[in-house]
């Protein structure tokens, strides 16, 4: 049988999980970007825009927005980790870099979640 030379074999390490999550979060963000551009294009019609925004101000979407913030933080922080590893010799200290960005990511998420929850319970 002819072997498929394109067959991808992944060995599972923390880095692999980070990489797969980077792809999945990236795909989610592309999808969100497309929807975002579509919604904002209602700006040419103020009444229509307010109608759409009133709908999107429902608590459900607010909670999804916090999820979006989480996805953004993950993708941005993991992306910066990749840059550190690629350009700044981070590969020598990649475990420390990994845990460093995990801590920064959690802090950023909480910092964003506080005003979010504040708006929700208000």
């Amino acid at each position, binding site marked *: 049988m002819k072997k498929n030379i394109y067959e991808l074999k992944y060995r599972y390490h923390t880095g692999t999980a980070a990489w797969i999550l980077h792809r999945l979060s990236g795909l989610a963000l592309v999808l969100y970007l*497309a929807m975002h551009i579509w919604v904002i294009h209602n*700006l040419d019609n103020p009444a229509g825009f307010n109608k759409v925004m009133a709908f999107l101000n429902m608590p459900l979407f607010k909670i999804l927005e916090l999820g979006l913030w989480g996805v*953004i933080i993950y993708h941005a922080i993991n992306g910066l980790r990749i840059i550190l590893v690629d350009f700044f010799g981070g590969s020598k200290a990649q475990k420390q870099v990994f845990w460093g960005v995990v801590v920064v990511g959690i802090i950023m998420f909480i910092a*964003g979640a506080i005003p979010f929850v504040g708006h929700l319970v208000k």
Partner: protein
Amino acid sequence: MNIKFVTGDSGMKRWFYQRLTGIFLAVLLVAHFTIMHFIGTGEIDYRTVAQRLSSPYWKTFDLAFLVFALYHGMAGLWVVIDDYVHKDGWRIFIYSVVVLAGVLLLIIGGLTIITFAPHVLLTFPGNM
């Protein structure tokens, strides 16, 4: 044929631009999210957006943001497709869809930002 189509270039430039736009986006996106969602009431309506978008500086910011985000997103999609889709026919089809979607979103988003007219702000009746 297949391999040539994929690896005609080393991907070095794409790799570098992905990182460069990534850094820009990380900064712009955190600023964007902070301004839109963390500062203020959390309720976004026409007036809050129009006030900002009537400034040419914000138009430039949003336009740069749009171009970087679309480039970064579409280049990312490109790499993912490159890894999982190997039949030439499918590749050409899916790549075409990605390019078309990218161009279409750039036109829609670009027009929204560039043609946004602040005078609408003054004539909109519910705006006090």
